[in-house]
């Protein structure tokens, strides 16, 4: 893999790739130190504290370790991927039935990771963070509430203001490429 290109990825995504490709425990510990306190904040916002929060954080981080082969930096930042796992686990705990999730779409041990796609998405991810940083405090508060799961779906339908169009196009390219590779695998 192109190390020079990878060193320009945001550090969390680079740690997750190190976990995925090298089972790197130090990188995993860094991911834990970065995300555990943030997931704790996220859980506290819906009233889950103490050992109830510990259980979810532990479960989420173990899944990060065990499922890292599914992480594709051309389609997600480390934060996006971990956000998804945290949301899914939290809802599984809240509801009696498992949260319905879409079929997974990935190739394990892909021979040619899409480094260019990963970098392109990473740049968009940086722009998104800057845009969030520029929001008015009241706008920012509403968007935080929405993504922390504190609004009803009627309230969510009124949310706008995040520049997500380019990110969607990038992810779409990543998916198209993956579909292509899946087709090649089937016809080999």
């Amino acid at each position: 893999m192109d190390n020079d290109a990878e060193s320009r990825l945001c550090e969390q995504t680079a740690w997750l790739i190190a976990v995925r490709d090298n089972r790197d425990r130090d990188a995993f510990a860094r991911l834990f130190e970065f995300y555990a306190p943030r997931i704790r904040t996220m859980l506290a916002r819906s009233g889950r504290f103490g050992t109830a929060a510990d259980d979810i954080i532990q479960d989420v981080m173990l899944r990060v370790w065990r499922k890292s082969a599914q992480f594709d930096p051309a389609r997600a930042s480390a934060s996006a991927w971990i956000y998804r796992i945290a949301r899914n686990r939290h809802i599984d705990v809240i509801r009696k039935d498992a949260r319905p999730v879409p079929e997974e779409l990935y190739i394990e041990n892909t021979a040619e990771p899409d480094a260019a796609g990963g970098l392109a998405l990473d740049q968009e991810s940086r722009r998104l963070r800057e845009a969030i940083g520029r929001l008015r405090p009241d706008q920012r508060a509403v968007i935080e509430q929405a993504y922390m799961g504190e609004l009803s779906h009627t309230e969510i339908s009124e949310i706008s203001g995040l520049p997500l169009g380019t990110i969607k196009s990038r992810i779409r390219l990543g998916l198209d490429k993956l579909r292509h590779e899946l087709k090649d695998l089937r016809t080999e």
Partner: protein
Amino acid sequence: MSPMIHHIPEHLIRAYAVGGLPQGFSLVVAAHISVCDECRARLETEEMAGGAILEALAPDTATDGRDTALLAAVMAELDDPAPAEPVFVRSGIFPAPVMQALDGRPPRWRPLGAGIRQTILNSDREGSVRLLFIPPGEAVPDHSHNGLELTMVLQGSFHDETGAFNVGDVEVADGTLEHSPVAGTGAPCICLAATDAPLRFRRFLPRLLQPVFRI
């Protein structure tokens, strides 16, 4: 994968991403995304926004000691085998999340009259989700809705006043839509339908019977 025409509206994808949808709607969204890369890209985009918000949250530093102890516990478990979890895969016309709702078994159809059959997958105070089997050319009775209804075609097709719906398409009907869906003439139409309120049929079943049939 044939291109779909009728997708999940953006605000419902966002609501699903953030965990704000009832079980039934979540199932329709997950089933559609299993077969639609356009909506999958939109879901993953919402998750990028969620991730950026998560990253920017103030970490809960009052619990540093707690996190250190938790990290040690997690590191000690890394080499343990993952606990066995049931894995569901697509089976025939049913995407993996529908198979999960069916507990991996084939649907057990219950007759509703006129050759129409249903299997209820989940029903709680937030609404219900079911599979519907409609013979070719058969009309589903006129109905309007108290709330929101999402219907995804899994086999065959149907059409109504708003258009034609083929495999993978999702119809979104709110309280203002009074429609009379008719199944296409090919294979029987099998749909996944979720509502957040009991359906109100205008004929076909007296409203009093609705709780009995849970329709």
